[in-house]
């Protein structure tokens, strides 16, 4: 049974030496950002404990990242939680409740200090002592800090934990913050999306499990494997974009023919995600594939870039809502009007001056 095998046993059964195994362990520690003194601990863990413990916390969120996670088709989540990781704490799926559940978290934090992965779904409310999200009688803010302290690495699930998402949209009534604003001293893998694609989520975990290290991250802290190109760059409607064939309203001839949704406000050109490649729900479709413009749900601050059905957001300007182009046009108009007025005054002054000179 694979479930019974420790990592050490897996290595043995594949004909790899103990040296290979030790090398793997130290590489793992390095890529997890652990101090070299912790390597023997990792070796011990790998020899005795087959599956990486995962603590999955929920803050201000909608649980849709969890829902997406359980939609994964390869691997399926049953295999994931039975064979690959040990999802020891997750309020959505755990059997234990109340203090028995908190006990599990404390136990993992102690026994696997420096070895467990902390997965976070949701934002951290920072206003008013964190009373906008409380777990087990304490603020989520405290729980998160406490649990992060001994984590080997942190996974930030979804737009919430990565960048902020809906509760952090203007005016952000709870002071909701993404987790990198709170956790500063751990490697954080951001997996944005509202929610992220299921196979991207399980892909991130299995990457660590299979290759023994964290996936390479881009400048924004996202795994390159899933976030290095924009929706637009692999969109099947791209030919229509290049041709300038744009949908101008829903349910028109052009819509049925699958023209480009750029003019409907599609944020594909500015959105890094795998939707146009992996697609959603085992490759069934993706937003653009079903006729709706991308709203940019894996991008920082996308909620405040509305209205969604326009290319450029409304901005607040001197107390009014307007667009960048209106501001620009007003400025240019003002410049022209100003020049004309200035010319008029110049002419008047000059006439006066000439008159004075004549006298």
């Amino acid at each position, binding site marked *: *049974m694979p*479930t*019974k095998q420790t990592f050490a046993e897996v290595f043995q059964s594949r004909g790899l030496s103990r040296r290979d195994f030790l090398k793997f362990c130290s590489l793992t520690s390095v890529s997890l950002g652990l101090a070299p003194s912790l390597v023997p601990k990792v070796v011990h863990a790998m020899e005795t*404990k087959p*599956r990486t413990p995962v603590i999955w916390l*929920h803050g201000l969120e*909608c*649980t*849709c990242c969890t*829902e*997406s996670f*359980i*939609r*994964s088709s390869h691997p*399926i989540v*049953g295999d994931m*939680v039975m064979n690959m990781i*040990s999802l020891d*704490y997750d309020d*959505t799926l*755990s*059997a*234990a*409740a*109340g203090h028995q*559940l908190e*006990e*599990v978290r404390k136990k993992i934090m102690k026994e696997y200090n420096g070895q467990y992965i902390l997965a976070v779904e949701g934002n951290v409310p920072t206003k008013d*002592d964190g*009373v*906008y999200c409380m*777990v*087990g009688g304490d*603020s989520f803010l*405290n729980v998160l800090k406490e649990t992060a302290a001994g984590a080997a690495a942190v996974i930030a699930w979804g737009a919430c934990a990565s960048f902020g*998402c*809906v509760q952090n*949209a203007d005016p952000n*009534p*709870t002071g*909701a913050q993404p987790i990198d604003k709170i956790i500063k001293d751990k490697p954080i893998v951001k997996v944005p999306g509202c929610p992220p694609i299921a196979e991207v989520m399980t892909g991130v975990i299995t990457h660590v499990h299979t290759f023994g290290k964290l996936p390479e991250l881009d400048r924004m802290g996202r795994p390159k494997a899933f976030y290095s190109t924009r929706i637009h760059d692999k969109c099947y409607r791209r030919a229509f974009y290049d041709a300038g064939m744009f949908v101008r*309203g*829903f*349910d028109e001839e052009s*819509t049925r*023919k*699958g023209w480009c949704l750029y003019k409907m406000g599609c944020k594909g050109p500015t959105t890094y995600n795998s939707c146009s490649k992996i697609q*959603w*729900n*085992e490759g*069934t*479709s*993706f937003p653009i594939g*079903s006729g*709706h413009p991308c709203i940019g*749900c894996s991008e920082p601050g996308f*909620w405040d870039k*509305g*209205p*969604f059905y326009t290319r450029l957001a409304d901005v607040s300007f001197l107390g009014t809502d307007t667009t960048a182009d209106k501001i620009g046009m007003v400025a240019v108009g003002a410049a022209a009007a100003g020049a004309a007025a200035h010319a008029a005054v110049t002419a008047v002054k000059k006439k006066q001056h000439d008159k004075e000179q004549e006298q």
Partner: protein
Amino acid sequence: MAKKIVVDPIPRIEGHLRIEAKMNDANVIEEAYSTGTMWRGIEVILKGRDPRDAWAFAERICGVCTTVHALASVRCVEDALGIEIPANARIIRNLMAATQQTQDHLVHFYHLHALDWVDVVSALKADPAQASAIAQSISPWPKSSVGYFKDLQQRLVAFVESGQLGIFSNGYWGHPAYKLPPEVNLIAVAHYLEALDFQKEIVKIQTVFGGKNPHPNYVVGGMACAIDPNSDTAINIERLNMIKKIIDETQTFIDQVYIPDLIAIAGFYKEWLYGGGLGNFMSYGDFPETNLNDFKSLLWPRGIILNKDLSTVIDVDPRDMSQIKEEVGHSWYTYSKGSDKGLHPWEGETKPNYTGPKPPFEFLDTDKQYSWLKTPRWKEQPVEVGPLARVLIAYAKGDPMIKETVGMVLGKLQVGPEALFSTLGRTAARGIECKQTAGFMGHFYDQLVANIKAGDYKTFNSERWEPSTWPKECKGFGYTEAPRGSLGHWIRIKDEKIDEYQIVVPSTWNASPRDNRGNSGAYEAALKGTPMVDPSKPLEILRTVHSFDPCLACASH
């Protein structure tokens, strides 16, 4: 002196729920207090935005009942702006809502609720041959051979022996309130895993029409997915075939796995009839066959039942400013014109005002404000919403299909209809409704195909798309029957922007704190009178609370 116990966090729900309960010396619950411990302020965030964007914000209230807030939202905006959506859009939305309901109920039963009744560890002792025999006796489901259960049991043994129990760590295994024989436990574990795998298929229907799940896309005025049987980029026969296949499989899974399991498990708990609660039930109705204001066309009927009286179904009108009101006397909010009066959502407001103890704390002050949920009441009365309410109202109204399914389930369990007023009744009602709704899915599919066949491809009404066509000021109401019950969105639009947006959610009705008259909501009422075998392992509280399928992100939003 009464002992107080706290269950927090409550797992296997959506969001953050806390229960404080007072027990008497015989360990029977005397008072219970239900607390939502998170608030995000979506109603506040929606203000000032484009009403056409509202669905996306509202949808993020919850990823478990994803879709339903988007649906209620587009419906309330369309109501405000006077938009009639095309028939295809109505049918597609019905199909998506039905998809949500079946998937959500399946996940609830197996992954959120089953472990309150099923002892996973006991399954290790099961005899696979006997498990196979039982499975085959209750259902024609093909995955029921001896070998199948043997393999599974071996996997389970390996899993338990690894010493890492993962999500099963520290559960109440061996608790005396567990009554199932090891073989039934083993079958349930098998179906736990199968359902986990299958639920992800059902939602593909939403992906076809809405582009993804969770959080599929909607538009005000219809649906964005174009229909054209002669286009390779619109809904064509390939897409329809996929939907048809999923509907068929869903119906089979519910008939051959969910319902037999429900009956088998419930059969061992027939005497555990606690958790009835309020006895008041409400449903707005849903699945319109014409439009939302034609109540006779709703496949799930609307109405109110009071005091378990199935002989009378009272009308409910969520637009009537005197019927539905939200109170904040025990919630962490204030109202500018006095926090002691309830407000109808069209004049509602959301102003947070935390007055509880500074965390960390041991107990909340449950005599004062103690929850992030408001307290919705119908004519000042608490009502329960959800599958049980819907089933009872349809039953009381004499819906023949519901009568038949209810009769079948009650008959197999050999209990009378009064057994429905209980924790188990609530759980059974969810299964009954799931079967009914899966049936509707086939009906909606047929309607869609018939329309397309007749040459009707229309999915969107563009008349009121441009904000310049809107009235300067208007208000609207949108509703749906979400998996957990009646959901309403009330909107006020002014100068092309959202002026006020109020959401009253099923779980707000059920999980609300006490009202201004001191009356409990459904959770609190249902917990009263429940005896606890071992208060340090409050399995009974989990059972009853879970039977409502709590969603706290929804409830407080």
